[in-house]
């Protein structure tokens, strides 16, 4: 039997915890959808329990992985996705505590998180990469954390848009949960978009400072930099369309989902499609 703290034992523990996390998030996602559709305290309790359980296991898995890799979880695709899911769920729980009406967004957010974990878990290797010296800077930590916060806000905005578009917000369970609808939902979408834009701006600025440390220039029109700029422009455009031109309802919801698509591609897809200086670090 492999000792738990041996390298092989740590890999096994890491992967086992990863899949337990994914299964628990899947359970949480299912209970949020059932809560939204049928309502009732029972589903509310189960959704909260499953989310907290998944978050605890996710935290332990990240700690094990961090110990195994010897660096913070932001090098490989597996690390990036698990740490992003962790931060997004923490953000969701914090927001939900402040405004319980937003619990309904879990019916969109947690399925997306589960799919991301499942996809990456089957496609990526559990290998850990060696971080270059240029990673030993606080700016990289700021860059990564704010990227994840931005993705969290974009997902929450898109989640509210999704609930409105699919009519889920009008289901009995949603009504019982006081899910924001109409102008209140548009208002929340705007606020999450504004918060996401704030985080995205910090992410780009911190990234440019790190790029200057690592490569000697603040901006180099590298594909991932250009896609971050495109993402920033799309979110700026969205804010202008809401504030100045009064976009709301279906148009705003579709725009939110499209903006989320651009955001996810910019953050996770570009390194798979383009030969980018950022992607060279990643263990696929």
């Amino acid at each position, binding site marked *: 039997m492999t000792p738990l703290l041996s390298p092989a034992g740590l890999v096994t523990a890491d992967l086992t915890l990863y899949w337990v996390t994914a299964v628990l998030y899947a359970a949480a996602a299912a209970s949020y959808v059932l809560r939204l559709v049928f309502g009732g305290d029972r589903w509310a309790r189960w959704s909260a329990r499953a989310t907290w359980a998944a978050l605890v296991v996710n935290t332990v898995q990240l700690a094990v992985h961090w110990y195994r890799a010897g660096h913070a979880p932001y090098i490989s695709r597996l690390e990036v996705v698990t740490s992003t899911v962790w931060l997004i769920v923490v953000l969701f729980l914090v927001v939900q505590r402040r405004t319980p009406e937003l619990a309904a967004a879990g019916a969109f957010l947690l399925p997306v998180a589960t799919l991301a974990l499942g996809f990456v878990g089957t496609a990526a290797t559990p290998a850990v990469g060696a971080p270059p*010296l240029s990673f030993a800077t606080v700016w990289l930590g700021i860059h990564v954390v704010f990227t994840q916060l931005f993705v969290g806000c974009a997902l929450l905005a898109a989640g509210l848009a999704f609930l409105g578009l699919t009519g889920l917000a009008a289901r009995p369970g949603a009504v019982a949960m006081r899910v924001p609808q109409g102008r209140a939902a548009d*208002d929340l979408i*705007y606020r999450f978009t504004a918060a996401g834009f704030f985080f995205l701006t910090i992410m780009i600025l911190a990234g440019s400072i790190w790029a200057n440390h690592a490569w000697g220039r603040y901006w180099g029109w*590298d594909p991932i930099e250009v896609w971050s700029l495109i993402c920033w422009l799309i979110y700026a455009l969205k804010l202008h369309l809401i504030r100045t031109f009064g976009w709301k309802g279906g148009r705003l919801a579709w725009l939110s989902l499209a903006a989320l698509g651009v955001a996810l591609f910019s953050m996770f897809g570009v390194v798979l499609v383009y030969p980018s200086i950022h992607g060279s670090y990643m263990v696929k």
Partner: protein
Amino acid sequence: MAAGSFAGPLGRTLRSPRLAIALLAAFAAACLVGNLAPQVGIAGADAVAAWQATHPGLAHLLRLIDGFSLFTSGWFLVLTGLLALSTLACTIDQFRRVRRSAAHPPVGAEGARLLPPAPTREILLGLDQAAAARRVAEALRRLGLRVRPADPRAASAGQADVPVLAVRGETVGLGRWSSPLFHLGLVLLFVAVIAGALTQWSTTLLLAEGGAFDPAKQPAHGDPGQADGSRPALAGRIPPVMLIEHLPRYQLKRYQPDAASRLQVGGRPQFVSMGRPLTLGRLTLRQARRYGALAEVVIRPAGSPSSEPALVRRATDSPPPDFGGPVERPDGSYQAGLVFVNQENAERQERPLYLPMLGGTATFRLVPQATAANYRLPLYQRFQLAMTFTPDAPASQASGPTGTAASPAALPAQRLLRPGESLSLGGWTITFPSLRYWTTFTVTSTPLTPVFFLLSWLCIGALGLGLFSPPRWVEAVVLPAPQGRGTVLRYHVMAGRGGAFFAERTHLALSRLEEAQE
């Protein structure tokens, strides 16, 4: 911009939100097009040519719009300039409007022009006026609002004879400065980028281990590292730099082929590595890339005394020479140099070298010698040289000074040489003294970096103001009920985009007053 011209047709066009939206969309689309194909300035001309060969149709279209160097093309720069001008015009306009609204805080219907209000609502409370006003103030405070007595005009229009108590709960309201300050930060950042490009300069130093660069000295002939005509006069601008040694310890990923160098800058010992630049006041010294490693081998007749001196390291030994073949030296021995471009290539590339005195070809390869590991990060202290010898056909019996040819039967398949070690081959001895490295350093002066930092913080701070202090307020009045039983609470919430949820929370909080008395 003068007020007159700002109000003119050009000013009106530039501050038009439609133009701003169109320019933002056009800029995003241009960036997208710039990502369809590799760019000459980023991927290199070879990559662009290869892409053009595989996508002839799209390449033809992209050539029409300068799509392979799009980010430096004229039309892209014009688009960027227009976007900056539009932002500037909108910023001025926003400042004017915010200043007006700050000087004359909107009340009631005036405020409605700025922030569309939720409809006025009424609640019947079974309390006297003072108690009702107190309860309302408490409820508004619980919502995080600053509460103060208000102008009762807001809700008492048409009932001037009725005694009313009015309260106003509001957020701090600095958020109204968010958008103009953010846009101002963007415009200034744009100006600073242009000014920074005009004022910054950089130079490159190509140094061999043990070599030094002294800006006060005239560049030597044949020293490309110091005779770069494009550099500014460096005397007095940068200190003398000496590369003491490389520390090839880190086996890193691509773009970080090797890391650390010990330097002496201005007489002081320093340490610099890839991704860890050295800041010297306004200067930044950065290890750009390792140029190459040179393995030298010395071939002498077996039994001759080794008089090999330590490697002579000269400041002007750059770029590294490639001998091409063994060079006969005055003492009758031969010297051969084998250049490995960088560590990553060295692990893959083999360097064949025909050795006529041995009658065959020796193939050399650098092999990293791992001596320790830190977690999963292997540390390499030095390299070994792996040599494989392939003799010519049996007819080839070249003879050296001793008249001894290499005997195929006596040759090992592959031999590893540690630095300083020798091996015997036929009547010859091959010695591998050690490796030498060359490195490119860049020295950059960016005097406006603190300005970039300040402006970045301005942008972030301005966005934060908008997020954490949005302009919202609630105006509430408490009137005597018409039938003389209790009071009527009449209120409306003033909140712009992003405030409807706040309005709902306010309605919920105030309606609880009604529920509480039931």
